[in-house]
């Protein structure tokens, strides 16, 4: 399988390990990634707050570049990116009269034909292969955290169920993990306020961490760099807010699969987490 | 456009709504211009293209088609079919060179006596402004009948 690749900004910086593990896992599964050349930021959680047209133009440039490179399908691992790309693509499809102005802004023709997929969709297609190649089953209890942007708004993303989604649960099962039943799979972590309102992040993410622990999870698994930042980078604020120390790690789904496939933990960027990826009793067993 | 031109207006109306509405105009003694000649049909669904064309052929300067409001049709959906057909008629007439400004589709219910008077007056004035439908003769010669 060949597929276009749009890593997005956070995968170059604060969430490098998502990029590393995505590349490592997909390479191991024989997927070839063609990175969109000279890509720009999609505008993420800021552009739409300040300027609607900008929030269309930034994603449109990325899609136009992909089109130029002959890419028909783009993987955007970051849930925020894929959500933004989809929103812009759909709005322009519904309002073709806006395209001319956007083309003028980006200085390129825009067709909006490339299909945008998230990481769970791509992994989902490879599930059988993943299960077959699993050499070190990830025998953990997992709280799968999908966050907001992967499944919402359903009219835009049209992926999985908007409440209690299942795709990640099925994926971790395929590598030997046990998903826990928990109600906060798609509850907001505070995403966009990661920098500005850490108090809100601590409160919202705190609720998630606490409940995941309470329901017996060994690890929280995510598929979005923003969720990960909030659950990992902001853990000290969270613990401070909760007045409790929670060391439950937050991992990317690609890291979980990578470990199960027997890939080198360093290549998966496991060491980059603020909350160390350590498991109470079973840790040693699975590392072997 | 001469002041003395008195247009000939033909109205196709359904028995249940507009005909009754026009009756109510009478019972309420609301005056309107006398140029209109009403032809009663059971339902606007009954009105077909040829009837409209014949009316023009016979020298009508304007045509009114009026029935029950959507959803009020005595025959449930006759006016629905009529409405759909009118769209097609308009296109067809346009295509044939008939001046579609001379056809007015409307709804007048059995309770809208005043509305009927208003409609007839509006259409009469409008057609009076448009003048006699002389062009039709040319069309007729071109063989569209």
């Amino acid at each position: 399988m060949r597929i276009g690749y749009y890593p997005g900004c956070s995968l170059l910086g604060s969430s490098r390990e998502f990029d590393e593990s995505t590349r490592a896992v997909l390479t191991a599964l024989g997927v070839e990634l063609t990175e969109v050349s000279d890509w720009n930021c999609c505008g993420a959680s800021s552009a739409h707050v300040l300027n609607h047209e900008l929030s269309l133009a930034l994603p449109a440039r990325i899609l136009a570049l992909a089109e130029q490179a002959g890419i028909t399908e783009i993987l955007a691992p970051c849930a925020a990116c894929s959500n933004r790309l989809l929103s812009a693509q759909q709005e322009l499809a519904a309002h073709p009269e806006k395209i001319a102005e956007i083309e003028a802004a980006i200085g390129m023709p825009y067709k909006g034909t490339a299909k945008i997929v998230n990481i769970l969709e791509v992994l989902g297609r490879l599930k059988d292969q993943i299960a077959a190649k699993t050499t070190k089953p990830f025998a953990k209890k997992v709280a799968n955290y999908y966050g907001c942007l992967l499944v919402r708004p359903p009219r835009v993303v049209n992926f999985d169920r908007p409440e209690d989604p299942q795709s990640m649960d099925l994926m971790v099962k395929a590598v030997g993990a046990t998903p826990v039943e928990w109600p906060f799979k798609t509850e907001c972590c505070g995403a966009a306020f990661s920098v500005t309102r850490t108090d809100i992040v601590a409160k919202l993410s705190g609720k998630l961490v606490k409940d995941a622990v309470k329901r017996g999870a060994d690890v929280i698994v995510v598929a979005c760099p923003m969720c990960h930042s909030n659950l990992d980078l902001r853990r000290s604020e969270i613990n401070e807010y909760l007045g409790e120390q929670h060391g439950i790690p937050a991992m990317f789904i690609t890291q979980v699969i990578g470990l199960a496939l027997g890939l080198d933990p360093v290549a998966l960027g496991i060491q980059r987490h603020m909350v160390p990826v350590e498991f109470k009793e079973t840790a040693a067993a699975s590392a072997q | 456009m001469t002041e003395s031109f008195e247009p000939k207006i033909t109205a196709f109306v359904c028995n249940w709504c507009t005909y009754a509405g026009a009756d109510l105009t009478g019972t309420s003694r609301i005056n309107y211009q006398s140029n209109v000649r009403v032809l009663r049909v059971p339902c606007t669904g009954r009105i077909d293209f040829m009837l409209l064309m014949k009316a023009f052929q016979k020298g009508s300067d304007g045509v009114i088609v009026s029935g029950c409001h959507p959803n009020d049709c005595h025959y449930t959906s006759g006016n629905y079919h009529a409405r759909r057909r009118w769209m097609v008629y308009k296109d067809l007439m346009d295509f044939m060179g008939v001046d579609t400004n001379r056809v007015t589709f409307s709804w007048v219910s059995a309770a809208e006596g005043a509305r009927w008077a208003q409609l007839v007056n509006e259409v009469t004035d409008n057609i009076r402004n448009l003048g006699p439908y002389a062009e039709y003769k040319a069309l007729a010669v071109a063989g569209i009948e």
Partner: protein
Amino acid sequence: MSSGSHHPNLETLAGRIEAGTGVKLAHCYQCGKCAAGCPVGDEMDLPPCQVFRLLQLGFPDLDEKVLRSEGIWLCLACETCSSRCPQEVEIPKVMDFIRGEALKRGIAHPKSKDILSFHRAFLDSIEYTGRLYEVGLVADYKLRSRHMLKDVMLAPKMYIKGKLGLFPHLIKNRSGMKTLFKRTMGKG
């Protein structure tokens, strides 16, 4: 014959919202489900349903109350409300729109400043480099918001973990980026 076409009245805020977002305020029937599920509903001075209620009446003083509120700056665009709204009202779109309106009129809530500083810093970073330069963003944000101390503890750790690039990633076509910003933001 009544026609279905309908033109929003751009003189009113409700009309501008409808024209700008496609959301008709009258669709909201005040069930409160949005407020009930909003992760920051209890932090907001005006929960989403109240925002809609105040706007629905079309009284200028109530419109202004909304535009001046803090709550509209707290919306995370998490889409919880809109995915559950029985009337399929796209609430976050309206939130985006009215924040813009508040800025234009210069009556945005003072607490919006931090949030705005962040978004401005974010967009500036993209405008000049094409991509987000996180260190630059944080530094820039701190300068703008004057929250100098916040997060200083985190940065070195992130650096050690290889998560903070000290140099921005520059895209090649930076002039293209400038044009893009001029043509979109330029319109204000």
